[in-house]
Every structure is written in C-alpha cells, then in structure tokens.
C-alpha cells in the first residue's frame, strides 16, 4: 500500500502557475503566426509611417496622437487574440480536455494565457515606443510613456475578456476570423490613426479601443483635453470586462 499522495504546498502551486505561464510564453514566442502580426507588425508599420511623420510637417500634437494610436493598436492585438483563439484551437485539438483531466491548479491554464497576452501586449507597445525613440521621433517623456502604457495595459483587460468570450463560443477554425471581425473595424472606427469625421465619431464609443486611448491620452497628459467623460470610459471598460468575462467563464464551466 502506498502512502496517501501528499498535497501540493503553496510554493508548489505557485511554481505550477509560473511554469504554465513560462511555457505559454515560449509557445507564443515560437509561433510566427502570433509573433509577426502582433509583436513585429505594429512597430514595422509605425516605422514606415513614422518616417513620413518625422520628415513631414506634422505638429507635435499630431505626432503624439499618432504614436498613442499605434501603441493602443499594438496592445490590442495580443489582448484580443491571445486568449480566446488559442483556447478554441486547443479545445479542438483535445489539449484543453487533457488540461482539465490533469491535476493542474484551478485557473492556471487561463491565468497563464491572460498573463502572457498582457505581457505580449506590453512588449508590442514597447517595440513601438523603442522604434519611435530610435527613429528620433519620440514626442513623449518617460513619465508620460509609463503612465500611458500602464493605463493602456489596464484597459486591454477588457479586450482579453472579449477575446475569451469569442473563443469559448466558437471553434478553432472560426475563432480567428470572428475576432478579426471585431479587431479590424475597431482599429479604424475607434479613431486610433486619424481624427474621425463627425458621423463616425458619434459611433466610436461602442469600441473598447476608443475608451482605452481616451483614458491613456488623458492620464499621460498626452493630450490636454478629451471629449469623452473618463468616468464613463472606465465604467464601459469595466462593464465589458465583467459581462464578457463572466459569460465566458459560465460557458467554460458548463460546457468545458
């Protein structure tokens, strides 16, 4: 007769979370389909268009606005695609079922995906800042960068919840396409890259990226004035996070 199997100590449970996150990170880092569009493309596009900005006759305010838009764009991709799409794919492949059968600490799988999505969002945003710095076109000081980045990352949690909800409700084949249906219009219709005409501007508040940028711009004093109530922006982002996050978790618990 063997002894009773020992319980996991707190440090072992913590280590299991860390190891899960470590290999989730490595897995993403080694997946070109994730790294190229979400980690490299935003900085590449900024460099391409930023050169025009650097050599064109653009006002400092416009340069700040432009950089901020690219940073939100960079952070939005990993957040929106980094949890739900891999979950949908791994559910189709049987990996998600295997993880549920194994004695992994509760939540380790999702926490790892969430943490890694946020880490990639931060890295993607950092690559844009670094690109701007080395292109000699950095219109923000260090404090502004830190505050702007922190607020943006906090805001992208809402996109993580939205992406998760899409992922748990669709197959691995459908999830990337469905996420794109939200991602692409959101990038343009949130007014990240250019001031929107009045007709579109009234619809911009339906997109989370609009609120993320508005909050980050104000908090980092990148722009002195905004046109949307920041308290309302916070409430909308929190509501998106709570609603889509709880719907996704409910579905996961019920149907696996």
């Amino acid at each position: 007769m063997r002894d009773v199997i020992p319980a996991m100590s707190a440090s072992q449970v913590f280590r299991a979370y860390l190891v899960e996150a470590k290999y989730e990170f490595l897995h993403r880092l080694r997946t070109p389909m994730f790294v190229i569009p979400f980690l490299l493309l935003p900085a590449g596009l900024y460099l391409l268009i930023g050169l025009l900005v650097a050599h064109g006759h653009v006002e400092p305010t416009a340069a700040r606005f432009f950089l901020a838009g690219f940073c939100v764009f960079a952070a939005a991709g990993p957040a929106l695609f980094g949890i739900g799409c891999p979950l949908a794919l791994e559910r189709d492949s049987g990996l998600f079922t295997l993880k549920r059968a194994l004695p992994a600490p509760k939540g380790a799988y999702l926490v790892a995906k969430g943490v890694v999505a946020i880490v990639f969002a931060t890295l993607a945003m950092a690559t844009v800042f670094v690109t701007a710095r080395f292109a000699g076109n950095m219109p923000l000081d260090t404090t502004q960068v830190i505050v702007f980045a922190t607020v943006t990352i906090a805001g992208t949690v809402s996109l993580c919840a939205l992406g998760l909800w899409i992922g748990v409700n669709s197959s691995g084949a459908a999830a990337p396409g469905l996420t794109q249906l939200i991602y692409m219009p959101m990038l343009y219709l949130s007014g990240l890259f250019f001031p929107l005409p009045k007709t579109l501007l009234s619809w911009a508040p339906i997109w989370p990226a609009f609120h993320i940028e508005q909050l980050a711009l104000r908090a980092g004093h990148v722009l002195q004035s905004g046109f949307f109530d920041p308290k309302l922006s916070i409430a909308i982002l929190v509501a998106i996070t709570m609603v889509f996050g709880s719907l996704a978790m409910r579905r996961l618990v019920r149907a696996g």
Partner: protein
Amino acid sequence: MRDSDQAQREDVLALAELRDVHKRFGTTVALAGLSLEVRRAELLAVLGPNGAGKSTAIALWLGLIQPDGGTVQLRGRSPLEVESRRGVGVMMQEAGLNPELRVRELIELTASYYPAPLPLKDVLALTRTDALAARRYGKLSGGQKRQVQFALAVCGRPELLFLDEPTVGLDIQARETMWHIVRDLVASGNSVVLTTHYLEEAQALADRVAVLARGRLIASGTVDEIRSVVGRKQIRCSTSVEIAEVRRWPSVIDATTDGRRMDITASDAEEVVRRLLAVDLHLRDLEIRHAGLSEAFAELTREAA
C-alpha cells in the same frame, strides 16, 4: 494521524468507482446504470464496440463530465476535486500538445501539476524518450508523439493511469516497450485502466476485463473467465480432410487453412475431433484451445446488440 486515517480509508476503497451511473447526451443513452470499479494494483481493460460507453466512463472518472444519476468516485473523492486527480495520469487518444514546445519542456510542465513527480531524467529513461528530449513535439512522428504522451502520463508518479488506445501508431518494438513498462507499473502497485481496440493488447496485459455494450457492463472477469464465457473452442491440426467437408459438419462455425494446417472454430470441439479422427487416421499436430479474447468479445457484443 489524519494522513494515516486517510491511507486506511483509501486502502479499503476502490481507486475509482462508478456506481449505477446513468448518462445521456440528448436522446442518446451513453450509460445505463453502469457499475464498475478499478482495484488497486490491477490493470483493468475496458472493452466494447464504438458507442458502448467506454469514453463516457473514462470522462466521468476524470471529472470531464457529470453523471445524470449514480455516483462517481476517484480515490475516494469526487473527480471534480483537483486533489483526487493528483494521483492520476492520463494518456488520451487525441491530445494535440503544443507543437512548439520541446519534449523535456512538456514533461516539466506536466510534472509541475504533481506534488512528487519523477525527476525529468528518470521519466526520459523510464519511457525510453531520452533521444527525443530536446526535440520539438510538432516535429515528432505519430509513434514518437504517443511515447511522449505516455511519458506525460507517468511523470507525476500516479497511482492510477488512464490509457486510451496507448499503442496506436507504435511500431512493434515501441509497443512491447510500453507493455513492459505498464506491466512493471502494475507489479509495483499501480493501477491502470486501459481502453483499446487491440484485443491482443488487453489479452497480454489485463488482470481483469470489463466488456461494455450499449452503456451497460455485459461481462467482467479475468481474460480466462471472459474467454470461457464463450463455449466455442478452436481446433488446429494437419489433416487431409477437405475444408469444404469440415465446414458442412454440425457444430463447425468456421474453418480456414493455410495449406498445411487447418483452423476450425467449433461449438462442440470434442465431437468435431472424434469425427476428424474417424475420417483421417493420419491426423497430426492436434491442438485444442479455448476461444481467444477476440472471439469472446465478438460473441458477447453480438449477443448484447
């Protein structure tokens, strides 16, 4: 003291148990009052045709689905409790592990879920996967992937292993290696639940066989007990009697020949042997044996259909 009580309690209880379990998916009845237990230090082979309820039973034991009725226990607890699964290793039929991770990384990740896992080098040595350790999972052949999945199943030092079609895609040498490891695990006190379509695998490994059909347990016992459920026997001999004539004899179910020897399946083997000896005085190399597990399985599941 509490640990000791717990140990005693677990010693008495079966390692895993389904008691009068019912499960339905929409209008399809997957399990209809199934009762089945896994005892300590035994290899239980769960056999059955497609749709018999094997996968549903395993999914219930692993806490992946909930029963509509009856009780499910894993190591004396609900399988939904992560503590109950800490003593369990799993090898599933379909498990698309992360292709970008290396084998040793996958083992380290899975081992992190267990309180007292085997060291990495021991897992690699035990499962003969040393040569694969640095390779990315996505670059492995189908058989090598099964070997790695087996390594993941055993890395946590589980006392109960669920193996679902473990040797599909393995070459003969790798299959025999896996059989050898499984035998050693059972001999050292572990339990294994094996589902397989290779009946020779069940025959080679199982201490006990459970045959499921239409969500019910239709037979359970040792391989010999299951084989003896079927009255038919197999006769092998070298004879000059024409096969067409043998096939016409009453109680002969089937007869085949490779040109040198004849194999006869009969419901009354003694009667057939008497008749063979009467018509062929030069009959040689006579062997009579009980039906194999595959014949027993076919007959049991046909009766249950």
